[in-house]
């Protein structure tokens, strides 16, 4: 892919394309599909009469995502600057729209249905925020030294955080986290971020106390066995605990047989633990760490700040989401609906994640060794 003819001015410079990143992503996607099939075949059979029901939908989205990834990786990432504002605005529109035409699933309005295709605006919002904030910050990098500059950027992110957070707390946390990480990287200061961390904590506390059900989550978290709502968490722990060192073997999970509700979504990591054991689970974590490490390498070598920030945004997105998901599954933090990137079932998510990978690859493509 890096064999395309180079421009004359760059003739003597070696071009770079991060194959390691691409292979890690492809491996993760394939592994995710295998685990998804293992986890979802039971409920696919029971609910839809087809064990491959979920796999087929996920395959379609993955195919779309891989096409998008390759296409985006070939396009110079500066091209997307023109769409930064458009993306930002359409994400606000879509996130608002979901209140009115969204379909309610499990008590949350998160999906917009266009015929047979469902779409989750919050997944799009993550990409849009990464692109828009990377663009805004790189344009006004000097203002990042001042508190007011930082607050401006945060204020830009807040409408989306608020809109998404109404229905999907975890996505809102991720978007906010992306914004904070971008500002943190762009700013030479340190002290301010301790303050921002404080503000973040206050923000989360307010969020928790606004609606009583969120406080209840805390109680469920402490003693999942005493609450009906702790059922899913507890079942996840049963799955993790029964995995042991090397697991029961691929496909041998008992907990996926209806004990963990919708195991293919948020709780898929617990099935990985049950089937592949501690060994498999640690491998998955290491794989994600490797992925995040590749992002760091690309970001550090990016040609310009915009490229670096794009990759940092993607890096923040993936790492925060992985950590939150595994923390929830292991009951390290209170339960909040969050999926494991590339592995959990979710078409919108995997498509946009692969698009983000395309962006990162595109940035890696811009790296020049001098």
């Amino acid at each position: 892919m890096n064999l395309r003819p180079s421009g004359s001015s760059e003739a003597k410079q070696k071009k770079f394309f991060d194959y390691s990143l691409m292979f890690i992503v492809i491996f993760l996607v394939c592994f995710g599909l295998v685990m998804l099939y293992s986890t979802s075949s039971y409920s696919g059979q029971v609910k839809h009469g087809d064990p491959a029901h979920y796999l087929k939908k996920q395959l379609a989205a993955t195919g779309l995502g891989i096409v998008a990834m390759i296409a985006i990786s070939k396009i110079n990432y500066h091209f997307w600057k023109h769409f930064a504002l458009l993306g930002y605005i359409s994400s606000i529109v879509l996130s608002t729209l979901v209140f009115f035409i969204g379909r309610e699933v499990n008590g949350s309005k998160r999906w917009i249905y266009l015929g047979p295709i469902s779409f989750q605006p919050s997944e799009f919002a993550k990409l849009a925020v990464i692109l828009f904030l990377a663009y805004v910050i790189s344009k006004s990098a000097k203002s990042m030294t001042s508190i007011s500059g930082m607050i401006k950027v945060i204020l830009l992110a807040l409408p989306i955080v608020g809109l998404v957070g109404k229905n999907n707390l975890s996505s809102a946390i991720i978007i906010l986290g992306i914004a904070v990480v971008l500002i943190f990287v762009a700013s030479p200061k340190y002290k301010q971020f301790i303050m921002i961390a404080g503000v973040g904590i206050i923000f989360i506390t307010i969020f928790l106390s606004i609606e009583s059900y969120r406080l209840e989550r805390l109680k469920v978290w402490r003693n999942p066995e005493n609450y009906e709502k702790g059922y899913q968490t507890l079942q996840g722990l049963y799955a993790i605990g029964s995995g042991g060192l090397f697991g029961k073997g691929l496909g041998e999970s008992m907990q996926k047989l209806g004990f963990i509700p919708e195991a293919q979504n948020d709780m898929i990591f617990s099935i990985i633990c049950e089937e592949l054991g501690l060994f498999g689970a640690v491998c998955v974590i290491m794989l994600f760490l490797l992925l995040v490490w590749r992002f760091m390498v690309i970001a550090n070598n990016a040609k310009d700040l915009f490229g670096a920030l794009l990759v940092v945004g993607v890096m923040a997105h993936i790492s925060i989401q992985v950590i939150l998901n595994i923390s929830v599954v292991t009951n390290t933090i209170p339960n909040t609906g969050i999926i494991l990137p590339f592995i959990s079932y979710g078409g919108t998510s995997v498509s946009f994640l692969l698009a983000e990978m395309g962006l990162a690859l595109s940035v890696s493509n811009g790296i020049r060794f001098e």
Partner: protein
Amino acid sequence: MEKNKTFNRKKILIFFTCMAVFMMVLTGRLVYLMIFCSEYYGQKAEDLHERERSIKAERGKIIDAAGKILADNRAVCTISVIHSQIKEPEKIIKVLSKELGLTENEVRKRVEKVSSIEKVKSNVDKEIGDTIRNYGLAGVKIDEDYKRYYPFDSLASKVLGFTGGDNQGIIGLEVIYEKYLKGIDGKILTLTDARGVEIEDAGERRQEPITGNDLHVSLDSNIQEYVQQAALRALQTKSANSVSIIVMNPQNGEIYSMVNVPEFNLNDPFTLNIEVPDNLTQKQLQDLRNQMWRNQCINDTYEPGSTFKIITSAAGLEEKVVKLDDTFNCPGYKIVEDRKIRCHKVTGHGPETFVEGIMNSCNPVFIEVGLRLGVDNFYKYFKQFGLLGKTNIDLPGEANTIMHNKKNVGIVELATISFGQSFQITPIQLATTASSLINGGNRITPHFGVNVTGKNKELVKKFSYDVTENIVSDETSETLRFLLEKVVSKGTGKNAFIEGYEIGGKTATSQTLPRSAKKYISSFIGFAPADHPQVLALVIINNPQGIYYGGTIAAPVAKEIFENILPYLGVDKK
């Protein structure tokens, strides 16, 4: 275009380091959960996945003294439905209600109940179970287990007792020896998904049931059968309400036979053995069943009448207030305080010795003996003879002796007690006390249970029973045997006399309360051989029609029994 500066790189590294640390922490959490909590959560998960079906254990057999099986087991089926596997509920309801003889509503309730497994009916004949299995209905489970089966149907029904739906003893020996007879139920453990559907090829773990131990009893089905026939004949010829007969070994308390006719069919214990009107309520029916299941020898008390004179004699002789050659005079009555108590011979027995008095069963003689003893002494001997408590026989629901409170006993009461009236005891209490008085003075415990053996006939438990020695002296016991032999050979009990045997005994005719109803209980207690008793029989005919004298109708029954069982027991003629 802004460049990527060094501080940017440094901050990216800081962020990466933070994320790496978080991931390490989570790895640590996973190590904790998957290694240190693995056993705990793994066990909980397994409990959740496993469904348990029990396999009924085979109950131990009850085996008689002759080695015949009195209570056995027969293969039956339990029919259950598994809600989540049901595909054709209407068909299942139809088939099950038809085959099991239940109403559609009863079956519907079970079929439509949302539970993992619901029992529809247990103790279904194996053939019916097989028929249902052949329908091949999804969600209907047929489990085989065992049901109690009694080869002799009604033989000793009130002694053996029967078992309920869970094979638990309900009355009789089945209750008392439950702990030995009941085995340990086995289990089939299968893995199921969250809906309770068993997972194919997951295999199942079986915990085999452990069969209960066999109970060996002293009851002898040959004697029991013979005694039952004799009782039935008496019941029919005398149109009596019921006939109860106890045959036991007076030396050690082993009971050879305990008959209470009419008996009921143990294989169908809920069907009444009498004709009843159709319009009875469930409660009335149950009351009648409870009545039918009563063991009159143990659960009911009666006024013993003249057979109690054995006890009065024993007390009098032991206290030495009366000697065999003491003379009495019977004018046909005796005046006690202001009451004139009649003798059964209105014209009186005239002058007689104590020996003649007992042969004649003369009330005034025994009133005199009772008065000579006095209340204190009399009660002392009641207590010493073990008469005031229960016999502790190994059957449930033994009734207590109903005796006057000692401080309420005046002269009149003392007089009536002396010839067996105004108080009540159970037949088994009378038989046991009489046995103990004639066997040399050892108060024995009447019992059926001899020992318990395991699967390979090995001895699991040998029962031993309390014996209280010297409740009367040897001498008194011997005198008593001599007196009672005279009653049979020359006195009121002569209808029980068998040529070639020395038989001791005592007759009784008691009037039941209220006296105005003119209902009687005729009884006879006899033992043989008189000098060394090996078998004792108590015959009680409740409410006979026509002639009701114990000597006339109960003694011949005892004679008939002795004639047949003495050779069987190896007691030779002299």
